[in-house]
């Protein structure tokens, strides 16, 4: 969800502070969603940060001006020190968001987190019905648990955000999904079409909706939105459409090293949670302060400004608007992260996007043909 972001002066000319901190506490997760944004080789990660190390990260981030904090993963609930981290974060003045699958949550924990100062819990669903939800999640008990936890979150007085990742196998459910959210009393509904990084890139052909599917879904969301507005409902629908159907790239992360700082489970600091796949060396909070990481590290300065841009970005009059798009997408689709994001119609590699669209029109793969995100599959992706 985006608000109006401030662009205040930081400690270095032209570099603002990291206002958003994403704490990926762990890659461990009981679910196996085939569009997971975690790295393909997540199972290789050793040595999660300790509680003390996370507390240090939180303090340093807050001192630098971070105000929004996401606890994410993997499934952050598997960290036994979560209540302690929530309390520390809240006491430091962060707005604290817990981004969870709901698995491992209990009504008791929901209340304990609230007492520790947690501001918001986002529960993710995979579909509007148990059968599809559990098939995507790779867990037979996921759906009922999620429903129960969504109710517990509401009961405890939190604002409720429900998140649905949308792909070709559930995109026909828009009305059912929104209606389920309405019944649960959601304040915000995120209908986030898959972004093709990590496991989702691996499974792109089996996930990407066709143009016709997407247009139908958009029409359904728009008409539901109208109904909500005329009935005076404050429930907000946020439909994130896939950039593969755009002709101009997204202003990814509002620019590299501009607002967002992700700390991965092993302490690697990243400008976004996907950047780990890039052939760039990123610093670790075990070795440097967050301040020097953000302002001085080569990794975080790599794509700041525009002097790194090749054509067609270099001479493009839109380069200050979209920053050349997404570096990860450029790397995944062209093999060179400096290139223009191929979503752009001006990119010489735009044909790769067109080919993906065409493939989506003819895709027939069923859910069972996707590569599910689990440790066994992850080990197949180890690079040595």
């Amino acid at each position, binding site marked *: 969800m985006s608000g109006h972001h*401030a662009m*205040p002066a930081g400690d270095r000319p032209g570099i603002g502070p990291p*206002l958003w901190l994403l704490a990926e506490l762990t890659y461990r997760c009981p679910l196996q969603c085939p569009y997971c944004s975690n790295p393909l080789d997540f199972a290789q990660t050793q040595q999660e940060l300790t509680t003390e190390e996370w507390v240090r990260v939180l303090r340093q981030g807050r001192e630098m001006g971070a*105000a929004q904090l996401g606890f994410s993963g993997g499934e952050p609930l598997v960290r036994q020190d979560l209540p302690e981290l929530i309390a520390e974060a809240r006491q430091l003045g962060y*707005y604290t968001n817990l981004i969870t699958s709901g698995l491992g949550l209990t009504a008791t924990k929901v209340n304990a987190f609230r007492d520790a100062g947690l501001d*918001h819990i986002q529960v993710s669903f995979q579909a509007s019905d148990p059968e599809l939800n559990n098939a995507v999640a790779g867990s037979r008990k996921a759906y009922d648990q999620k429903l129960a936890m969504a109710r517990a979150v509401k009961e405890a007085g*939190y*604002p409720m955000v429900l998140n649905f990742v949308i792909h070709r196998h559930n995109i026909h459910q828009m009305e059912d999904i929104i209606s389920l959210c309405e019944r649960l009393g959601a*304040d915000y509904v995120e209908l986030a079409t898959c972004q093709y990084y990590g496991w989702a890139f691996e499974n792109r052909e089996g996930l990407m909706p066709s143009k016709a599917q997407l247009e139908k879904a958009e029409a359904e969301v728009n008409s539901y939105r109208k109904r909500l507005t005329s009935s005076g409902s404050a429930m907000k629908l946020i439909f994130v459409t896939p950039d593969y159907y755009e002709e101009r790239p997204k202003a990814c992360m509002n620019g590299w090293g501009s607002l967002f700082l992700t700390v991965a489970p092993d302490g690697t600091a990243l400008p976004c949670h996907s950047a780990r796949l890039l052939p760039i060396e990123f610093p670790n909070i075990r070795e440097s302060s967050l301040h020097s990481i953000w302002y001085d590290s080569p990794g975080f300065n790599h794509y700041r400004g525009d002097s790194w841009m090749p054509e067609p970005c270099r001479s493009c009059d839109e380069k200050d608007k979209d920053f050349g798009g997404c570096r990860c997408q450029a790397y995944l689709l062209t093999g060179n992260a400096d290139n223009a994001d191929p979503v752009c119609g001006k990119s010489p590699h735009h044909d790769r996007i067109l080919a993906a669209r065409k493939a989506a029109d003819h895709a027939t793969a069923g859910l069972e043909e996707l590569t599910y995100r689990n440790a066994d599959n992850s080990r197949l992706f180890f690079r040595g």
Partner: protein
Amino acid sequence: MAVGMKRIPKLRPGFRFQWEPAQNAYVLLYPEGMVRLNDSAGAVLKEVDGQRNVADIVALLEQQFPDAGSLSEDVSDFLKDAEQQHWILFT
């Protein structure tokens, strides 16, 4: 239509108002979002505590900014806008 002077505004549940030194501004924080407020929006929301009615808030602000003249229209317009944005509710 103007907001009634006797109505009592409060922040919507899940919204937090606080001063951010790094941004040199008051901000409104909500699930996964943040709005940086300009000076006048910050001054009004600072007095929204779920107890004071609109007239109380206007009086307080007129005291704080004696050169600004009558503020009832500005405050009322802003609160109406804030309600439409779903930042605040009237009890």
